């Protein structure tokens, strides 16, 4: 790499970063995000208002109880604040309409045997409002208390109404019996997965926007006939590396803008994501970066070669899809990976250079990737890179000055043999 590599890299970056197409595509994602946010605000305003009411709901009204079973009246002192007894439905209805209570329950005489009860609320709200008004936890505790108060002590009563079975995640053990997932905290766990997923997706997008720019840049220079002047001034190697570096930086800029706008637009949510990202396993983070660099170099060189092969930008893009197809393959099976990130096909694709970067970036967030797959995929990439670069530069050099026709497979082969 020479000083000229950096001159070319800077030129590629500066001239492309101000292209209207780049600015448009960079701002498109934040703009869509902003529109989405506005839509959310408009459609869920009611809900947000309600949430606000709920936030200051210390003045919330109690729930009326029409107890025909005789199990719940008189109301136990610990529930007196939240529940109020009424002798019959008419009295309860009158209290509801007079807004003295927000809802009332009718507990029938055969409640113990049938388990059915009816709740009434005022119209004008929605089911979400009903959920808030009829707090399930309190209701459960109240109903269980009525059924078993004289049989159990208070601590057991509480546990009976909330066993805690609803919100835990299993801790996975490896064959030696050691926990594999360190954190059993659901937020950190899912946050970690989502954060590394988003991180992987952004890096993936960055690889493809950058190598797409690379393809177009080479192809345009060929179409514009600038190539011959360039090659009379710099070596094909300098030219290729200058472009790879400059346009790689361009792709990262785009992803950076998207990330920043995400943080700004979502405010706290963005910070939440950042927190989750910090909770991410540092090894996963480093590995994702390694796959990003190796992946970008691989696709960058391939796309530059594709750019030099076509007779026009469009034709070059068609050739480029041959390579990007390989990289897109892991995405097609990604939905099956939710249940088994280490499925055989995923493991096979991790060992194939064209799909390895994407496949591994998709698998890493789930954790638990066999070490052999990580070592193997990196080794495959590291070994195939020099070969791809060598062949890429040869094809690049051989086809740059062939105008109006595409190199035949035989000509490509002869270019490679002449190395």
């Amino acid at each position, binding site marked *: 790499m020479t*000083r000229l590599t950096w001159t070319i890299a800077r*030129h590629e970056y500066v001239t492309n970063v101000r292209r209207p197409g780049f600015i448009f595509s960079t701002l498109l994602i934040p703009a869509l995000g902003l529109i989405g946010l506005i839509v959310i605000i408009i459609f869920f305003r009611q809900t947000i208002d309600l949430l606000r009411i709920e936030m200051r709901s210390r003045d919330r009204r109690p729930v009326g109880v029409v107890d025909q079973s005789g199990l719940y009246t008189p109301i136990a002192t610990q529930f007196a604040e939240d529940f109020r007894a009424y002798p019959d439905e008419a009295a309860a209805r009158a209290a509801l309409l007079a807004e003295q209570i927000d809802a009332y329950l009718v507990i029938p005489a055969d409640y113990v045997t049938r388990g059915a009860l009816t709740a009434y609320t005022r119209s004008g709200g929605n089911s979400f409002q009903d959920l808030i008004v009829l707090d399930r936890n309190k209701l459960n505790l109240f109903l269980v208390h009525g059924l078993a108060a004289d049989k159990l002590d208070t601590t057991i009563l509480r546990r009976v109404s909330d066993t805690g079975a609803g919100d835990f995640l299993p801790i996975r053990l490896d064959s030696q019996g050691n926990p594999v997932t360190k954190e059993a905290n659901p937020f950190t766990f899912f946050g970690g997965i989502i954060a590394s997923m988003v991180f992987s997706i952004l890096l993936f997008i960055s690889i493809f926007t950058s190598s797409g720019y690379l393809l177009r840049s080479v192809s345009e220079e060929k179409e514009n006939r600038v190539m*011959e002047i360039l*090659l*009379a*001034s710099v*070596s094909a190697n300098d030219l290729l590396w200058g472009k790879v570096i400059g346009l790689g930086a361009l792709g990262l800029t785009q992803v950076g803008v998207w990330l920043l706008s995400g943080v700004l637009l979502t405010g706290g949510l963005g910070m939440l994501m950042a927190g989750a990202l910090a909770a991410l396993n540092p090894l996963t983070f480093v590995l994702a970066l390694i796959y990003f660099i190796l992946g970008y170099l691989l696709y960058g060189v391939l796309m530059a070669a594709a750019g030099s092969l076509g007779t026009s930008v469009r034709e070059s893009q068609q050739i480029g899809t041959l390579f990007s197809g390989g990289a897109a393959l892991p995405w097609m099976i990604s939905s099956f990976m939710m249940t088994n990130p280490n499925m055989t096909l995923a493991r096979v694709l991790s060992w194939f250079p064209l799909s390895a970067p994407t496949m591994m970036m998709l698998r890493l967030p789930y954790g638990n990737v066999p070490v052999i797959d990580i070592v193997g995929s990196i080794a495959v990439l590291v070994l195939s890179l020099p070969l791809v670069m060598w062949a890429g530069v040869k094809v690049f050099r051989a086809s740059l*000055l062939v105008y109006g026709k595409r190199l035949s497979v*035989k000509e490509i082969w002869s270019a490679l043999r002449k190395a």
Partner: protein
Amino acid sequence: MNPEPALFADKLHKEFAAVVAVNQLSLRVERGQIFGLLGPNGAGKTTTIRIWMDILKPDSGTALVLGQPPGAARTRVGYLPEERGLYRGLRVHECLTYFGQLKGMKQADAARRATELLERLELADRAKAKVQELSRGMQQKAQLAAALIHDPELVILDEPFQGLDPVNVEVIRTLIRELRAQGKTIVLSAHEMSLVESLCERIALINKGRIVLEGALTDIRRRFSPNALDISPPLDLAGWPEVEQAQTHVANGVTAQRVYLRPGVQHRDFLRAVVERGQPVERFELATMPLDEIFIRVVTGRGDEQ
């Protein structure tokens, strides 16, 4: 004379698929002259130039540029390729500055030099225009500026007059002479033989990848000149033993006569005969063959070298 030639090729060979583009070509271009590289389309001129510019690698043979292997002297060579191209979306001045930087110049120096060249080529008012907004002739001149941006010692111009109007042809021709006066070497490949004749001191004619004719333009002309004289006004030459044939023609409004002498008869023998016979002669000059004709004869294999 500098011991190292500006361009040197020894048994240079290059094939594409089944086509031999350059066939054991050997050539030496000395420094400080205007050298014409001529040949029909597909003769191998551009391929030879591309090998010198390190854009293509030869299959075999040696190529040297200013005494160095191709590629090593990139910053000392200016090149105007036959396939013209500039960054269409960039401003002219910006584009030239970038090409200067690629030739190893600092950005500020390249920018200053770009301004000078645009003024010299009468393009100063278009410096801020985008390349795609320029007319074809203007783009051609901007392209030439790109080749000269780093003040190279050796300038290789592939078809520099293509697509230019007579006014711009003159601008470029004057510029080439100025470069020559500054001691630079200019190698030009062109189809316009009259321009080659008016500029070049030496030429090489390439056909089918080989050099078929090479030397100083005056020598080549002499070698190809017929044993004939151009005289005016025309004479009645019937019965003259020295004369094989005479043709009267009108050139530039003047009636002249081309007199073909019998083999073995020298020009001075004919002149002496004219004087002895007391004929009035206002103009008397050796007939030469136009370069186009030499070109056609050599290329078609009718090499009537005299």
